[in-house]
């Protein structure tokens, strides 16, 4: 296997494992706070996935961040830029997704606190058994 | 010529940093409790982070193939170094305070503890 592919596959494998762990946390752990934590891990993993999709390995040299750094000789530098910079679109999408995930997390956190005020616990199993 | 000097001084500082880093990490592993590990962590932050950051700044000033953004690199590294020097001790201090007040970490081995005595005296 070529080295860049190896790099990608190492990350992919770890991301998949994390995805599974996060899903387990969401569906199987009783505490609401733990579920919230698992959701943040899940969305982080999805974001990492998106960034990985935008990664590239140029023919020569190392990949560059998508920021134009050198504009002295426009034609040459833009050519170098296109040949070496990684894909900016997934990064922009991820940026949006991170903020959205944070917003949802914020709101759920408020609701969990309110839930505790009303029920006296954040353990869904306990509330489920007490209400029946 | 000036580039070479900057780069060599920077490299020397980075080398010191790496050495401190490794020593600190070994200390982190070997020391027996939280309070003693704090000292190792200090080695890691001052020797292992601030010194190499200054070194990197010097190196960057010497690396003229990086373009004009190398000044940004240098400035940001030094500001980062200053920030770490300012903030890291406070972090250690508040952690130690919390650990001591809430009794989070075992205190042994400890020869004597004036703080505990003081607290006992105040509670009487």
């Amino acid at each position, binding site marked *: 296997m070529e080295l860049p592919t190896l790099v990608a596959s190492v990350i992919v494998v770890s991301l998949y494992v994390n995805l599974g762990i996060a899903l387990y946390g969401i569906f199987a752990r009783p505490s609401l706070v733990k579920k919230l934590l698992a959701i943040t891990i899940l969305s982080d993993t999805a974001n990492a996935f998106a960034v990985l999709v935008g990664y590239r390995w140029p023919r020569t040299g190392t990949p560059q961040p998508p920021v134009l750094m050198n504009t002295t000789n426009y034609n040459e530098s833009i050519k170098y830029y296109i040949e070496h910079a990684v894909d900016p679109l997934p990064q922009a999408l991820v940026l949006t997704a991170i903020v959205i995930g944070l917003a949802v997390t914020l709101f759920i956190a408020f609701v969990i606190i309110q839930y505790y005020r009303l029920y006296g616990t954040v353990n869904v199993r306990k509330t489920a058994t007490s209400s029946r | 010529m000036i580039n070479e000097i900057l780069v060599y001084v920077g490299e020397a500082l980075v080398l010191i940093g790496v050495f401190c880093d490794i020593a600190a990490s070994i200390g982190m592993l070997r020391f027996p409790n939280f309070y*003693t590990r704090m000292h190792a962590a200090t080695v890691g932050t001052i020797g292992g982070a601030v010194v190499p950051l200054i070194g990197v700044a010097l190196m960057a000033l010497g690396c003229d193939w990086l373009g004009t953004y190398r000044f940004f690199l240098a400035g940001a590294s030094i500001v980062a170094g200053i920030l770490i020097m300012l903030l890291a001790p406070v972090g250690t201090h508040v952690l130690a305070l919390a650990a001591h007040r809430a009794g989070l970490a075992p205190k042994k081995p400890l*020869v004597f503890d*004036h703080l505990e005595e003081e607290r006992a005296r105040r509670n009487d």
Partner: protein
Amino acid sequence: MTRKTLASIPAAILSFVIYLFYTGSLGLFDVITGAIVAVIIGLLVGNIVVENPGKALSIRRGFLMLIYIIWYFLVAETKAHIDVIKRALHPKMPLNPAIIKVPYNVSTDYAMTLIANSITNTPGTVVVDLDYENKYFFVHWLDAKTSDPLKAREIISSKFEEFAKKIFD
């Protein structure tokens, strides 16, 4: 009003310098934005950060600070680092830890913080707690040579205190 405006001047100057330093460029854009940022920050937080504008603008104190930093890095830190690294790598790991009361005698918060941070930043001593009213630090000392607070002050912090007094008091 006047005191607030005065206090914002050193804050603004400091902000401006750090802004340019961080940006690493002296272009027109950076200078203009830096000036705007410096004025805003100076007005907003100036009177919180700066206690005495006269002291903050004093060149002598700044010069002393520079000397202190150089001395601190070259002498105090080096000694302490070597000591702790030796202990960490030593096969037997000789440790003699203790929490000791160390008195200090400076009046301003900044001076106190300078001493405390200097103590914590030198490996081997960490400020665990402080008694703000009676002016004591409680220092966790990796190699407690003595249990007497005054002697400990001599070993740990007397030099820092000298400088702190000169710079901030």
